[in-house]
C-alpha cells in the first residue's frame, strides 16, 4: 500500500497516481486507485481537525459545482472540500441556470468550459450525463451522482468509513438492502466492495432487483434475514416515496414490515455490526429510528468522511498535477 499523500504547503506536490482525467465511475477504477484515494483521504481528514482547516493545494484552481438535481449533503460536502483545498468554487443549480431557458446540457457545459474551469462536479438525473461531459470537456469531470448509474464519491466515503471501523474491506460481509434497481449508490458500492474483496449481499423485493444480478458478482436474495445474517456491515438504501406508482411496492408500511431494519433484525448480524445509510433517510420505512439513532449507526461518520474523501478525489485529479504556484 502506498503512503498517504499529504498536500503540505511546504512540500512539492506528488504527481497523482490516478490514471484518468475524470472520476466518472467506480467501475473504471483499479483497486490500487481506490486504495490511493482512501489513503489520501486519511491525510485529508486530519486537515479537518486543525484549527485552520485550509491548505493551498488547489489554490488558483476553479471548480464548478453543476447540480441539476436537488442535493444538500453532496453539494455541501463538495463545497467544503473545495474550500478546504483553497479552490475557487462556483455553484450552479439547475433552476437558476439557462437550462430553464431550454439550453442543452452540452451547450451549458461548453459555455462554462469557455471560462476555463479546472474541474466540473456534476450531479444530474440522467445516467451517463457525466460521460457526455467528459467527451465534450477539457476540464476534469467528477460524477456527483448521475441518474441510476453511479455515485462514486458516496461509495468511496462508505468504504472509508468501513475501513475506519473494521480496518479492512476484504472478507467482510456487507449486506445492502433496499431499492436496488434505481440506486446509483448501490452500483458504485457493488463495484467498489467487490473489487476490494468484500463479500457483498444485496437484498430487496424482486420488483426492485437488478437485472441479471448474478453477473454483478454479488449474492442476491429477497430474504432479509439471510442477507444480514452474520454481516459485518449493513447498508440501507433509500426507498423513494413514489415507488408505489410503478407498482414496485404495495405500501411503505408493507416494505417496513418485510425489509425495514429493526433492532430485532439487527441481532442476526455480527455483534459489532455497523449500520450505514447514504441519506436522506426515511425513518420507519427502510430503517427504524432506534437503529438510525442507535449505537451501531455510523451515519454521521459517513457524512463527516465525505468531506475528506472528496478532498482526496479533488486533490488527486487536479491538485496532484504540477502546480505553477510559488507556494
Amino acid at each position: 500500500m502506498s503512503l498517504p499523500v499529504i498536500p503540505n504547503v511546504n512540500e512539492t506536490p506528488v504527481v497523482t497516481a490516478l490514471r484518468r482525467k475524470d472520476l466518472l465511475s467506480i467501475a473504471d477504477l483499479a483497486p490500487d486507485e481506490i486504495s490511493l484515494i482512501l489513503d489520501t483521504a486519511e491525510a485529508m481528514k486530519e486537515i479537518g481537525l486543525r484549527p485552520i482547516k485550509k491548505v493551498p493545494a488547489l489554490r488558483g484552481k476553479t471548480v464548478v459545482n453543476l447540480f441539476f438535481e436537488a442535493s444538500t449533503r453532496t453539494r455541501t460536502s463538495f463545497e467544503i472540500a473545495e474550500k478546504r483545498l483553497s479552490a475557487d468554487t462556483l455553484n450552479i443549480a439547475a433552476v437558476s441556470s439557462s437550462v430553464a431557458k431550454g439550453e442543452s446540457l452540452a451547450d451549458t457545459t461548453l459555455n462554462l468550459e469557455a471560462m476555463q474551469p479546472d474541474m466540473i462536479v456534476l450531479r444530474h438525473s440522467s445516467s451517463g450525463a457525466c460521460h457526455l461531459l467528459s467527451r465534450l470537456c477539457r476540464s476534469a469531470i467528477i460524477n456527483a451522482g448521475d441518474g441510476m448509474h453511479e455515485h462514486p464519491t458516496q461509495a468511496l466515503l462508505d468504504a472509508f468509513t468501513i475501513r475506519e471501523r473494521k480496518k479492512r474491506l476484504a472478507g467482510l460481509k456487507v449486506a445492502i438492502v433496499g431499492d436496488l434497481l434505481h440506486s446509483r449508490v448501490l452500483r458504485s458500492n457493488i463495484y467498489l466492495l467487490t473489487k476490494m474483496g468484500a463479500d457483498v449481499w444485496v437484498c430487496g423485493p424482486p420488483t426492485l432487483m437488478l437485472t441479471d444480478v448474478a453477473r454483478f458478482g454479488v449474492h442476491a436474495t429477497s430474504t432479509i434475514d439471510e442477507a444480514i445474517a452474520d454481516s459485518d456491515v449493513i447498508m440501507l438504501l433509500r426507498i423513494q416515496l413514489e415507488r408505489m406508482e410503478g407498482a414496485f411496492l404495495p405500501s411503505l408500511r408493507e416494505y417496513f414490515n418485510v425489509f425495514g431494519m429493526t433492532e430485532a433484525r439487527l441481532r442476526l448480524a455480527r455483534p459489532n455490526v455497523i449500520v450505514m445509510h447514504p441519506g436522506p433517510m426515511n425513518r420507519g420505512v427502510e430503517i427504524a429510528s432506534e437503529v438510525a439513532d442507535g449505537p451501531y449507526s455510523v451515519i454521521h461518520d459517513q457524512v463527516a468522511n465525505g468531506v475528506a474523501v472528496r478532498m482526496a478525489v479533488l486533490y488527486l485529479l487536479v491538485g496532484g498535477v504540477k502546480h505553477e504556484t510559488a507556494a
Partner: protein
Amino acid sequence: MKRLLKRGRVVDPANGIDGVYDVLIDGDRIATVGRDLPGDGATVVQIPKGFIVCPGFIDMHVHLREPGQEHKETVASGTAAAVAGGFTAVACMPNTTPINDNANVTAYILARAAEAGLARVYPIGAVSRGSKGELLADIAELKKSGCVAITDDGHPVATALLLRRAMEYAEMFGMPVIEHCEDPSLKGDGVAHEGYHAATLGLRGIPGACEALGVERGVLLSELTRSAFHVAHMSARASLRAVRKGKEAGVRVTCEVAPHHFTLTDESLVSPISYDTNVKMNPPLREAADRDAMLSGIADGSVDVIATDHAPHHYDEKKVEFDRAPFGIVGLETAVSLSLDRLVHTGVIRLPRLVELLSVNPARILGVAGGSLSPGTPADLTILAPDLQVRIEASRLRSRSNNTPFDNWQLRGGVAATFVGGRPLFVDPDAGLVV
C-alpha cells in the same frame, strides 16, 4: 435507349434464375434476360466478374421525415441515401408533421419524390387519424392517393379493437397493417434492452416481452380477421417464436428485421464507448440470444424481410443525455454491406435468399412493382460487388443525418450501382463498374 448488362451473375429468385446471364434494358423496362444477347444498338455494360445483378432492393421501413422534420431528412436526401445504399424503392412511414393520414400529405410526399427523381417512394398511411389511436384514418382515400399499407409506427395501434378494425377494413383494399409491436405499459420510460448492460449503466429497461406481447396480439387478430399483418422491426426471440407459431397455424403474418438487430447486441451500450446515443433505438439492441434468433429466423425463412427502420435525427438531437435522446439510427446506406458481410459471407444465407429478403418479399407484401427481372417490368436493378471492401464513414453519408453506430466499420461487400427505371442513379466509383 437500350442498355445491355453483359455477363453478370443474375440472381432473380422470383424467376428461379441464378447464373451468368445478360440483361437487356429497353428504356425504363426489362426487355430480356438471356445468354449471349446481341448488343445491337444497346450501350453495353460489362459486369465485372463476381458482381451480382438482381431486382432492385426495396426498403419497406424508412422515415423520410418530410413534411415537417426537414432538418433530419427530406424526401430528396432520403432517396439519395436510398439509391446510394442499393435501394430502388422505399416505403415511408407516416409519422411526419403533420401525420400522413390524408390524401394531401400523401400527394405532397409523392410530389417531392417525383421532383427528386431518385428512388421510388411508396407512402404508408396512418391507421388512425393523427396516429392518435382513436378514429380510423380515411383508409380508402389513402389507398387512392398512393399509400401501400397502413401503420401507426412509432407507437403500437392503441387498442386491440382499433387494430382489429384496421385489419378488417384495410383488407378490403389489399393493404397490410404494419405494426410497431409493443406493450406501452411494459415499455414505460425504458430506453434500452432490459438486461445486464442496461443494469450496469442505470438505464431503464425494455424487456423483449414488451415487443412479443404486441406480436402475439397482432397474430391473434390477424387470425381472427384473416387479414395481412406485418411485424415491423422485430428484435426479440419471443417475437420470432410468436411469428413462427402464427405461420405454422396458417395466419397471414409476415415480419421484418433491421440490420442492426442481426448485427449488434446490447453490449454496444458499453463498448466501444458507454452511453452512445447512436445505439439508442426502439426496439432496442437486445442480447446475444435475441440477435442469434434473428439470424436463425433469417436463415430458416421465418423472417420475410430485411428493412432498415432508417430513422434520421439531427446531431443536436442526439448530442444529449442518453435518456433524452430520440430513438433511431440511419440505415439506408449501411444495410446492404451489413447484410453481405454478416449474412452472406458468414454463410447464414446464400445470395438468392438475400434477394428474397431485400426485394422479392417486400414487393409481394406491399403489392408494389419490382421483386423480379421479368420482361416488361420496370428496370429497377441493384448491382452488388460482393467482395468490395467498404468502409462506412458517417460524415460521408448522403442522408441529411449521420446517426449511425457503424461509423468506421470495415465491411466486405457493397453496392456497385443502382438502376431505377433503367437509369443508373448511383454508381460507386470504387467498385470498378462502368455504366
